[in-house]
């Protein structure tokens, strides 16, 4: 239906949305949030609990209405429509399957409410059951199937009416690790096969990185950064984002030059390195920089190295080893090295070492 639309046309346009929950104390759940979700993309809202990601999802679904601002779906304002008038479906965290109906009855419910004819409905139900590989359990009661199977039924039920956007509220959090991994791949496949825009809410950074086309990292009712998983991981522009996704080394440095979106920083050792800058670049002067633990390597002590220090601790993780180092500036720094056969024992606790930094590894932070 929408196949000839350009890839990046906007599905959901959240415009300066603020949500305040009034109660004993007023809670500012969303603080002037603006974000665009593109057609056919797997978009993830990532953040710790209480950051406002579920509130934003509920506003898109229609279970809550914005205190201020607007939400548009394909250009039309849906901010004040009730949920049953929005061509958007939700997969709930606890699945919210109807316990008094069968698997097929659950999947059929939305189609029936839309006023589809019986024959068309049964055809869609069968197609959905095939899509989530649940054909054999068609006539089972919801109470008679496992958690993983309920998850599939919840997906089929939400996909059956072919919504413009599918909202997923931490749908994998109740599953065990193995099933969760399977469902991550499954969800990606479903999104690809159906061509429906997915908005996925999670607090799990790995889930966000592996599944998403783009990720919005949220904290305290604000969106801090939006970008591809690689962007978010390699070039976090905010200390919170860097800390929330993966492990980080933060250092003090001096920004000496800014040109064409690239910068040059000077470390305490005097070494100068190229650095990526956040979109609203800070002025020349003291800044915080980020270097990921795996973007640095240990070498023998050398006076020319950008960073030097001594090894405090070595932690073996199977696939890799973490070296905890105290730099000469007494800042802490972690280096992660992938383990190779026969590499054991190259460095010992207490060794004086230097560090090399890979090109494009330095990111200047906003603060």
């Amino acid at each position, binding site marked *: 239906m929408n196949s000839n639309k350009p890839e990046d046309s906007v599905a959901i346009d959240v415009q300066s949305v603020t949500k305040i929950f009034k109660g004993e104390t007023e809670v500012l759940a969303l603080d002037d949030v603006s974000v665009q979700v593109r057609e056919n993309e797997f978009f993830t809202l990532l953040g710790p609990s209480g950051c406002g990601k579920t509130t934003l999802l509920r506003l898109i*679904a*229609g*279970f809550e209405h914005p205190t201020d601002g607007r939400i548009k779906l394909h250009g039309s304002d849906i901010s004040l429509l*009730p*949920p*049953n*008038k929005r061509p*958007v*479906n*939700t997969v*709930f965290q*606890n699945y*919210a*399957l*109807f*316990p*008094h109906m069968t698997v097929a009855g659950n999947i059929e*419910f*939305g189609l029936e*409410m*839309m006023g589809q004819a019986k024959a068309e409905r049964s055809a869609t139900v069968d197609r959905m059951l095939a899509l989530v590989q649940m054909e054999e359990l068609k006539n089972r*009661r919801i*109470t008679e199937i496992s958690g993983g199977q309920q998850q599939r039924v919840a997906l089929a*039920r*939400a996909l059956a*009416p072919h919504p413009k956007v599918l909202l997923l509220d931490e749908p994998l959090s109740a599953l065990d690790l193995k099933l969760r991994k399977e469902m991550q791949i499954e969800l990606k496949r479903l999104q690809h096969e159906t061509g429906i825009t997915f908005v996925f809410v999670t607090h799990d950074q790995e889930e966000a990185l592996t599944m998403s086309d783009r990720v919005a990292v949220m904290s305290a009712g604000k969106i801090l950064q939006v970008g591809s998983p690689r962007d978010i991981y390699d070039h976090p522009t905010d200390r919170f984002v860097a800390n929330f996704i993966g492990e980080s080394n933060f250092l003090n440095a001096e920004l000496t030059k800014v040109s064409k979106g690239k910068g040059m920083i000077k470390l305490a050792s005097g070494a100068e390195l190229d650095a990526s800058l956040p979109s609203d670049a800070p002025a020349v002067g003291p800044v915080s920089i980020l270097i990921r633990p795996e973007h640095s390597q240990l070498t023998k002590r050398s006076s020319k190295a950008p960073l030097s220090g001594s090894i405090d601790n070595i932690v073996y993780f199977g696939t890799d080893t973490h070296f905890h180092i105290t730099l000469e500036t007494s800042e802490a720094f972690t280096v992660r090295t992938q383990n190779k056969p026969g590499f054991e024992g190259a460095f010992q606790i207490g060794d004086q070492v230097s560090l090399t930094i890979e090109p494009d590894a330095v990111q200047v932070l906003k603060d």
Partner: protein
Amino acid sequence: MSIASLLQRPFSVKRIPGFATIAIITFFCLYAPVIILVAYSFNAGTSLAIWEGFSLVWYQQAIANEAVQAAGLRSLALASIAATIATVAATMAGLATTRKRPFKGQTAVYTLINQPLMVPEIVTAVALLIFFAIIKVATGYQGMGYLIVAHTAFCIPFAYLPIRARLQGMDLSLERAAADLYATPWLTFKRITLPIMAPGIMAGFMLAFVISLDDVVISEFVKTPGQETLPTYMLGQLRRVVTPEVNAISSVLLAISILFVALFFFLNSRRS
């Protein structure tokens, strides 16, 4: 058994010495009088204490007694009407107190709804007697309305408790899911909320029905002359010569109550 293995096991009241004995004595004290009452309803003689052989004569006499018939039918009609109105009110109260976010004054509402359980029945009865007397003088109306209103009022909390319990066990996101799947608020109620809460409504109705059927204190105070219910009729009989006819009527009431309570537990245990 070693001390170590004793300590490892969780505490259970069943392992306290004498548990079984105490349980048997308790159940005996509770049910022995009832069993004797039922047994003597089959007594061939007129005595409540001396067994003179098996007979259904008191049941026949009770059924043939026009006063018993009238009181019995009145009790059934009263219980049906009062329990129905009380169940409708309790269902609405249940929905209002469980299907929305907790609102200010919700605890006060719970207390108000459940107040009839706390206030001594005799106080309610006297209050109603005085209140209805004023209305009777003002309007001249003498009909069954007073009994229906009084029974409905004290049946509401009994109907409310199982309905609320059922609704509290029901996930709020079910209605959200229905709305999300294009159901209007009315269709959401009809297709999702009502079918899931139905066992609670049935249980509430049956509990209210039994409570109304068994009530004596409030009925005695509120009824106008000639409006005997089965329990008030029996109370009246006890003031005269007591025959096993009272046992027979009691046994029938008991049977109805047991049936309804059993149904109540059956419906409540069928939680999905």
